[in-house]
């Protein structure tokens, strides 16, 4: 163990970890908000809405996250006068906000696909039964379909959170000092390979924690489905 380096960069790496968690938490939350209208548009009767949501999901699920980050972060610089004119430049000049924006768009596309699959996986008998009880379509969707779909979506959503934790490391390449960014900085100063292993341990702890919490959550939320 290199104790000097640990004393110098250990606390900074923990700060980086906090930045990573912030990035993930904000992007996942905003992405979840974005995913609903996109998933509904994807399933709507309007061809235009379906086309737009399909194009959006296809683009963000089919291209590398790093390329998307570059497109937003460097690409926005080209439109600086226009962005300044509408007062949005403060988002695009900051690497952290650029990453939040890109990650939100990225995870929004993935979460929309998860929601769409989950909603379609609810058996048709459920809405038929609700209809025969005289419930209105809106009520059926909110009270019958959505709660069951969310249970189906729970596991893939957990995987998506983990993928976001891992994916967020590309923020380091556009100068954000998340866990990966601090690790790269520490390595460039100390040339001690250990820092990468410390980062690996931290990432593994985060991912395993999320996985276990998610297992517990799923176990609790599906307790009515298990026989006693």
């Amino acid at each position, binding site marked *: 163990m290199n104790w000097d380096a640990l004393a110098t960069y250990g606390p900074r790496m923990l700060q980086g970890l906090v930045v990573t968690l912030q990035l993930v938490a904000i992007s996942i939350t905003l992405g979840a908000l974005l995913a609903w209208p996109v998933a509904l548009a994807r399933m709507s009767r309007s061809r235009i809405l379906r086309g737009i949501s399909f194009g959006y999901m296809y683009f963000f699920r089919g291209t590398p996250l790093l390329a998307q980050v570059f497109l937003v972060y460097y690409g926005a610089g080209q439109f600086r006068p226009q962005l300044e004119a509408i007062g949005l430049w403060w988002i695009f000049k900051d690497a952290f906000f650029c990453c939040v924006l890109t990650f939100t768009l990225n995870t929004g596309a993935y979460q929309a696909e998860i929601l769409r699959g989950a909603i379609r996986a609810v058996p048709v008998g459920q809405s038929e039964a609700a209809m025969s009880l005289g419930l209105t379509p809106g009520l059926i969707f909110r009270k019958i379909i959505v709660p069951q779909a969310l249970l189906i979506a729970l596991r893939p959503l957990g995987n998506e959170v983990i993928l976001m934790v891992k994916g967020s490391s590309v923020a380091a390449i556009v100068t954000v000092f998340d866990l990966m960014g601090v690790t790269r900085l520490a*390595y460039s100063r100390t040339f001690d390979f250990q820092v990468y292993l410390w980062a690996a341990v931290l*990432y593994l702890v985060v991912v395993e924690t999320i996985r276990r919490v998610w297992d517990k959550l799923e176990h609790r939320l599906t307790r009515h489905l298990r026989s006693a």
Partner: protein
Amino acid sequence: MHLLELLSFGPDGWGGQLLSGTWLTIRLALSTLPFGLALGLLMALAKRSRNRWWRAFGNAYTTIFRGLPELLTIFIVYFGGQIALQKIVSLFSDAPVEINGFVAGMVALGVVFSAYASEVFLGAFNNITRGQYEAAYALGLRPGATLRLVIVPQLVRLALPGLANLWLILLKDTALVSVIALEDLLRKTSIAVRVTKEPFLFFGVACLIYLALSMVSSIGIAAIERWANRGVRRAS
């Protein structure tokens, strides 16, 4: 007009550069695939082994390489490989060692691929019922022949959808090797951006090239699935 000129293949255009980057991306993904598949199958066998140490090893491997960010795995293989190789070489000579970025990228991406692939293979193995082995035994097939003629063809069919997904993910993950100075599509694009100051155009084009690659892959995958599912009767 000016923009089209930038993308052309002439002396002032970057078309040729982008094309050579795309070619490296494809080569990297294609050379990672067999390595990752073989390692993934080995890990699946380890996790099914009767020896608990093999099982523990397989499970730890999967947990670690599915939990680490791909970018970190690439750095660890690239810098760690460099250090390890240097130590080995320094036993014999003082020559400085330069690790090959392509090989480092291939190993790192292959290791990640194999961790996910081993789970796919494991699921496929679990879907082959014991009756298949028993029927093969009853026909007098030796264990090797059973594996080759009965199990593997079914394994391929069952694992294919999962592996196809992993291939599409691999294709996108190759973009990460641009950080270890490998001249892939994204790296070439970044160079073009630095010279031309047209980031939106070039990164947009790079994204479209990645999209095209996955579209072509999807067509290929559909063809392979048709081939693997030949002779399987559908329920409807």
